[in-house]
C-alpha cells in the first residue's frame, strides 16, 4: 500500500517549501518508503487547480483512495497533519486502511 499525495503550492515561496518539507517529514515518520509526493505549482498549472477546485495554497490532496482527504496550510503540526491525512499511527502499519 503506497500513499500518494499531491501538494498544490503557489510559486516558490517559503510557505510552499515549508509545506513540502513538513509533508515529507510526516511521511518519513509515519509511512517511510511507502509514499509519493507530487508538487504542483498552481501558477504554472492553474488548470489543475481548476479541475480539483483548489482555492487555498498550500493544499495537500491524498490521491487514489476514497474518501479523498484534503489538508490546507503549511502543515506545521505533524501530528495533526498525519491524523488529517489518515496516516497510520507509528507501529500500526495499515492505519485506517486495514480493510483495503
Amino acid at each position: 500500500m503506497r500513499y500518494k499525495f499531491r501538494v498544490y503550492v503557489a510559486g516558490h515561496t517559503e510557505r510552499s517549501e515549508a509545506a513540502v518539507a513538513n509533508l515529507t517529514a510526516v511521511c518519513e515518520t509515519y509511512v517511510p518508503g511507502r509514499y509519493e509526493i507530487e508538487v504542483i505549482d498552481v501558477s504554472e498549472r492553474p488548470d489543475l487547480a481548476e479541475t480539483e477546485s483548489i482555492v487555498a495554497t498550500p493544499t495537500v490532496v491524498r490521491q487514489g483512495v476514497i474518501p479523498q482527504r484534503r489538508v490546507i496550510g503549511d502543515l506545521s503540526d505533524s501530528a495533526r497533519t498525519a491524523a488529517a491525512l489518515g496516516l497510520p499511527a507509528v507501529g500500526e502499519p495499515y492505519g485506517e486502511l486495514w480493510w483495503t
Partner: protein
Amino acid sequence: MISAQAQLDRTPTGISGLDEVMMGGLPSGRTTLVTGTSGSGKTVVAMEFLAHGIAEFGEPGVFVTFEESAPVIRACLLELGFPIEEWEREGRWEFLEVPTDLTDSVEVVGRYDFGALVARIQRVVERTHAKRLVIDSLGALFATLPDKRYVRVELVRIAQALARMGVTAMMTSERREEYDGISLHGVEEFVLDNVLVLRNVLDEERRRRTVEVVKFRGAPHHTGEWLFTIDPRRGVTVLPLAFMSSRGQASTERVSTGVAELDDMCGGGLFRDAIALVRGPAGSGKTLLAFHFLATAFRTGERCLLVTFDESRARVVRDAAGWGVDIPAMERTGQLRLRATYPEAESLEEHFLTLKRDIEEFRPDRFVLDPLSALARIAPRQSALDLVVALTTVLREHAVTSLLTSSLLRPGALFGAAGPSGLSSLIDVLILLHYREWDGRLERSIAIPQVRGSDHDLAVRPFVIDSSGIHIETAERVIPDARAPAAWPFEAGEPQGGNV
C-alpha cells in the same frame, strides 16, 4: 474640463448616474470595495458594472462567485436585456464559480493563502482578456479563513494580484448594520483604497437606497449619500443630481405661455428652456393655466408631455374638454402624451425614472407636472428636493419648456426655507396665483416675482376666468390699496387653501 490623464485613470461603470457621483468612474486597474447590508444591491451593481463594460465599452469581464449564484445572475441580466448567454458563448463574460463548501471536509493545519484562487482567476482573465472583474463576495471567501487576523493580509494580496493582472475590480462585502461603518471582518474598508457603501434604510416609513463613495484614494469624487433605485428591467439608477452637466448654452428663443397678457408680464413669453413654477391654492387657476400652456404649444406643432398627480385620466380629459382642450384628439396626433398617476403609485425614485424615460423617449417640447406638491405626501423634504433637482436637470438638458404647479403657498411648505438649496434656485419663472373674497365675489390676482434673465412686470394684476379661460387685466392698474390684503399672502400668511 477633465484632463486626458484623469480620464485614462477612470473606468466608467456605465451605471446611470453612478459615474457622475464618482466623477468619471472607478479608479482604473484598482480594486473597489462595494459594501452594504444584505439586500442593499451589491451584486446588482457588480453585475451591471461587468455588463455595461461589455455592452458599451467592449471590455470583457469575469465574475467570480463563491455562492453558486451564476444561474440567478444570468436570469437577472436577461431581464435587464443583456445577452449574457451569447456573451458567455463568445467568451466575453466568464463565470468563475468557486464552491467553498469544500471546507467542511477540509482540515486546516497552519498558515495558508489564496494563491490557487488567484492563479485560477489569472487563468480566466488571460483567456478572456478581461478588463473588468468582480469578486462576490468576500464574506463567503473569508468564511473559510479560521483565523480572521489573516483577512487583512489576504485581502491586500488578492488586490495586488488583481492590479498586476491589469483589471479594474469590484469586490463585494457584507455589513451587519447600515451606519456602524464596519464590514463583516472589520478591516475591508481600511485595507482597500476605494470604498463604495450601499445603504437600504427606512426613512419616514419609506425605503431609501443610497450610495456613497466613502473613499477613492487620490481621486476626486462627490461626497454624501445619493439616492438610487433598482428596477428589474432598468437596473440600477443613481439619481443624477445638480452636478450633472446641464446644457452649455441657454436659449434666447421665446415661446408663449398660452396667455398673451402673461407673456407680456414675463417680458415677451418664456425662454424655450425655462422652467416655470405656478404656485397658488386649489381653485386659483393653476391647472387652467397649464391647459393654456399645452393648447398653445399644440397649435404651434410642439410635442407635449402632461403628467398629472391626484386625478384620474377620465377627469383630466373631462376638465380639459371643459376649456376646449381635446386631449384624446391631441393624443391621436402623437403630439401629446398624458400620464395620469398618483404619488403613492411609485416611490419617488421610480417617479423620477418614469418621468426621465418619458422625456427621453417622447422628446417633448413642453412639459407640465400638475401638481408637483402632491409628491410632498410620499417623500421626506430633502428627497423631494433631490427629485426636483434631478428632474429640472433632465428638462434643461432637453430644453423642454416646463410648467410645474404647486398648491402649497408658503415657500417653506414643500422644500424648506428658500435659499441656495431651495426650490426657487431651481426654477426660472415663479408665477403666483391667488384669490380672495371681495364684495360677494372672488377676485383673482396674479404676480410674477421671478423671471430669470428677463425684464418682467412687477405689478400684482387682477384676472378673471371665463368660459374661454384666463384674462389678465393689462391696464396699468394694480389692486387699489383699499382692497389689497394687508400683505401679499404668499409672503406671510398661512396657507389658505390647497389640496395637500
